[in-house]
């Protein structure tokens, strides 16, 4: 042992360790579900409804069945006996309704893209060829495509069986005296907002390869998902299989962002078809199909007002969110969580005594909507911050000054929001100060004024935010969803003295495996390169919640830490017996167990392992030689570990063309303990760009009959490199005391406030022109309408 190894605390948590996964990706050695093939594999293609709402009057698949290479053509009746229906409601959303769903439409088609028939063929091309031979006739029913009209008592129903017409869910959140506060307030600002519907556009589409072995009744599903355990449970329950006989493997996943954890008709049909036919079945949607079947997100019509006193202190907000979803609520997480978070996150950074938030979730005949990166956050943030900026203009206050006067002070925690959220410790004041320095705010304002004189319109927008991370069991479990709030890890010391970890959080490129290696390496005194982490396989890892709602690092990381500490205690006990030292006086460092009081007394971990595995006979009788430990952890402190931060956007608006140029973006973020600063920063940047895409480009466009009219990447605009700004990032670290690790989530922080900052920046640029925009995406056309250059 060299002297270097004796140094205690060569910590890897907090260092920018590079990802081993990235080495595979750059070498072209990734293995995505889309890359997998199996012997005897069949390819699936779907025949979909071309109409938004209707009744199937004829479905003739006989010609398709006879087509070359076709193994089978399945319709709803074929799958009726092997797959039970599902319904996307949860008990804690009191009174919510939704019609139940089956893999293939039985009689009624509910949106353009609703799968009606499924072709299984020897190749994808053959399956697609045969799908053209299916004769499908649909009697058109009125399509519900406008949420306000949908709520009218005379409106046709989006789904004929819906119990309460087009109302899926309604709730009101209210403190005592909202009306009185507004009546007496010195200032009231109000606004109407429209937030467009957009979608995840992961570069790898959803993908599934289901492989049922009839001889053992085992189903193995390779699936690009964030939540293999949830799907193991789903497939087992709905296909009538033993849960222990269902294995879900998520290999490399080409982007997910919340979109790949929902139950889709196609995936259920593919798994059912594999069970029915005893052959592997693969399905990868093409890009059009992703637009027609991946969940869409957002889509809100909001009226909101804010009351302030004479000095600009926020007194109350009053918000009404009409949130149109699809024709049913998504299973198993519902389509209600988005709106629910919108009304609960309003005004979250601020001392705001009173609040009323009303939410109406409305069915319509479009693709189902559900949770997507930063669920509800960007909407609540944009509404709140647009009103704060509007109030600042009305009161003649600087945007920084009005926020400084209203954020919950850094020394005022714990604190409770008007909407009922409990904040353990946030750092708005410090973040505000840091952002101002980071962006050189005063110089930017001077530059803005100088450029305005030359007819150049630049704008600066800022947006503080609060993010929900590390959710506990009250999030889904309480409503009856079989979605775990805990995670599990098995940590093992190999006979060679290295570590292997199997953990229930999953990897989609954010660096899960890397941070787990860092955490475990620190606990065991190893180098992270000596820690191998396995994720994404229900058969080889413990069951857990996996990756969503910014819980991987905070909850999964804590699970790994505690599991590793258990193993470290075992290692100390075994080596203590050899070294004749009390285990508590031993330290794990530099790949060895070292005595704290005498560094010369030490033994390599490989030696501990060798003795425990190969010569347990040399240890004292009765000693526990286990070198694999399992540990599960569920958060039990605050219901959520909230994070906070602030973003700023700098834009230039061309009033002639309506085009917005993004010049620069800044983020100050507080996610508690930073496990890996490199990965944290790139999570934030990626999140910001998704938010900017929503702010300026991305929208699923429908015509009044419910036809999606931009179902390709040529027509649906995603943010591309040449349009995106550089993004500067700074941090504040306020670790949560709920856990030893102290880490909170960060994956959604970028998306949470980017569009709000951009909207405020655009409006700041438009201010001298007397124009204002409160609709996203802020397309050139809409900006020209705001400028009244175009009037239609």
């Amino acid at each position: 042992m060299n002297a270097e190894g004796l140094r205690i605390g060569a910590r890897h948590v907090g260092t920018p360790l590079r990802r081993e996964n990235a080495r595979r990706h750059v070498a072209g050695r990734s293995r995505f579900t889309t890359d997998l093939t199996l012997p005897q594999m069949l390819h699936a293609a779907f025949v979909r409804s071309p109409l938004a709402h209707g009744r199937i009057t004829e479905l003739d698949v006989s010609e398709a069945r006879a087509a070359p290479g076709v193994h089978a053509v399945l319709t709803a009746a074929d799958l009726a006996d092997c797959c039970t229906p599902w319904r996307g409601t949860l008990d804690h959303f009191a009174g919510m309704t939704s019609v139940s769903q089956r893999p293939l439409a039985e009689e009624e088609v509910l949106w353009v893209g609703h799968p009606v028939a499924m072709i299984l063929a020897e190749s994808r091309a053959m399956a697609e060829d045969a799908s053209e031979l299916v004769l499908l006739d649909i009697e058109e029913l009125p399509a519900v495509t406008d949420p306000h009209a949908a709520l009218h008592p005379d409106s046709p129903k989006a789904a004929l069986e819906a119990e309460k017409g087009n109302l899926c869910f309604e709730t009101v959140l209210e403190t005592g005296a909202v009306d009185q506060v507004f009546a007496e307030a010195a200032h009231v600002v109000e606004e109407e907002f429209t937030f467009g519907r957009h979608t995840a556009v992961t570069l790898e589409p959803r993908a599934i390869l289901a492989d049922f072995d009839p001889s053992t009744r085992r189903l193995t599903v390779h699936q690009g998902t964030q939540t293999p355990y949830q799907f193991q449970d789903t497939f087992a329950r709905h296909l009538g299989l033993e849960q222990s006989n269902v294995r879900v493997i998520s290999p490399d996943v080409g982007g997910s962002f919340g979109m790949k954890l929902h139950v889709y008709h196609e995936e259920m049909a593919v798994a059912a078809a594999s069970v029915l036919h005893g052959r592997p079945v693969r399905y990868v949607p093409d890009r059009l199909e992703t637009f027609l079947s991946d969940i869409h997100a957002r889509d809100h019509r909001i009226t909101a007002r804010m009351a302030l006193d004479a000095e600009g202190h926020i007194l109350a907000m009053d918000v009404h969110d009409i949130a149109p979803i699809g024709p049913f609520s998504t299973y198993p997480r519902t389509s209600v969580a988005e709106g629910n978070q919108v009304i609960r996150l309003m005004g979250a950074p601020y001392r705001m005594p009173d609040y009323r938030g009303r939410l109406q979730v409305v069915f319509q005949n479009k693709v189902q909507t559900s949770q997507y990166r930063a669920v509800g956050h960007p909407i609540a943030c944009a509404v709140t911050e647009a009103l704060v900026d509007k109030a600042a203009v009305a009161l003649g206050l600087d945007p920084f000054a009005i926020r400084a006067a209203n954020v919950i002070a850094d020394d005022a925690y714990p604190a409770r929001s008007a909407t009922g959220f409990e904040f353990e410790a946030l750092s708005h004041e410090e973040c505000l100060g840091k952002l101002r320095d980071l962006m050189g705010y005063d110089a930017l304002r001077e530059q803005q004024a100088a450029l305005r004189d030359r007819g150049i319109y630049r704008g600066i927008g800022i947006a503080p935010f609060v993010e929900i991370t590390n959710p506990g069991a009250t999030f889904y479990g309480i409503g009856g969803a079989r979605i775990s709030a805990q995670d599990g890890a098995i940590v093992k010391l190999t006979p060679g003295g290295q570590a292997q970890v199997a953990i229930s959080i999953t990897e989609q490129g954010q660096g899960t495996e890397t941070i787990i290696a860092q955490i475990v390496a620190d606990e065991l005194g190893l180098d992270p390169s000596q820690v191998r982490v396995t994720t994404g396989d229900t058969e080889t890892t413990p069951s857990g919640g996996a990756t969503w709602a910014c819980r991987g690092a905070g909850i999964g990381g804590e699970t790994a830490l505690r599991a590793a500490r258990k193993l470290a205690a075992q290692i100390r006990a075994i080596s203590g017996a050899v070294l004749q030292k009390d285990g508590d006086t031993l330290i794990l460092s530099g790949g060895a167990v070292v005595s704290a009081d005498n560094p010369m007394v030490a033994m390599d971990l490989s030696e501990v392992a060798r003795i425990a595995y190969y010569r347990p006979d040399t240890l004292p009788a009765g000693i526990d030689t286990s070198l694999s430990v399992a540990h599960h952890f569920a958060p039990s402190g605050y219901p959520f570990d909230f994070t906070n931060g602030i973003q700023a956007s700098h834009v230039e608006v061309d009033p002639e063309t309506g085009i917005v140029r993004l010049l620069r973006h800044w983020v100050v973020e507080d996610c508690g303990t930073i496990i890996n600063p490199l990965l944290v920063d790139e999570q934030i940047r990626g999140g910001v760009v998704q938010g900017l895409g929503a702010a300026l480009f991305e929208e699923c466009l429908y015509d009044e009959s419910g036809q999606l009219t931009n179902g390709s990447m040529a027509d649906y605009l995603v943010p591309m490199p040449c349009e995106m700004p550089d993004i500067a990032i700074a941090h504040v670290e306020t670790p949560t005391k709920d856990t030893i690790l102290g880490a909170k989530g960060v994956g959604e922080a970028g998306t949470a406030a980017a569009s709000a900052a951009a909207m405020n920046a655009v409006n700041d640029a438009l201010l001298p022109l007397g124009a204002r925009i409160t609709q996203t995406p802020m397309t050139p056309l809409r900006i020209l309408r705001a400028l009244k250059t175009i009037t239609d």
Partner: protein
Amino acid sequence: MELTGRYELEAPPEVVWDALFDPEVLAASIPGCETLQAEGPAAYTATVKLKVGPVSARFKGNVEIVDAAPCRSCRITGKGSGGIAGVAQGASLVALEATATGTVLTYTADAKVGGKLAALGSRLIESTARKLADQFFANFATHLKSRQENAA
């Protein structure tokens, strides 16, 4: 989507009118028409092969001529299903007016598409529809001419 068009045909309105009700002329005029079967005096079923941008499909549909005011005007409605390509439906008001050299035919049509056609081809549909209409009437004029020549 609304389309309008105006065509000058070298035949009197009566001849044009008859031709509009002649399945043979219609079959030869409809671009991509593979089969056309009369289901009644003014109703047909047809199979048409079309390509709109990236989407090509065989449409099965029916065409009906209603509100006929002989030699003056009628309304043509149609509905077609193109399998996974989507659906198309439309109605067109056709009017004939006698001129010194023959007939001026004008139409206004309202067309709606659904499914893949709408999602992928929305930017191409209008120009394609216009092209198809032009093709139809060009073919129609040619057949009208040969019909007249044969008759002569």
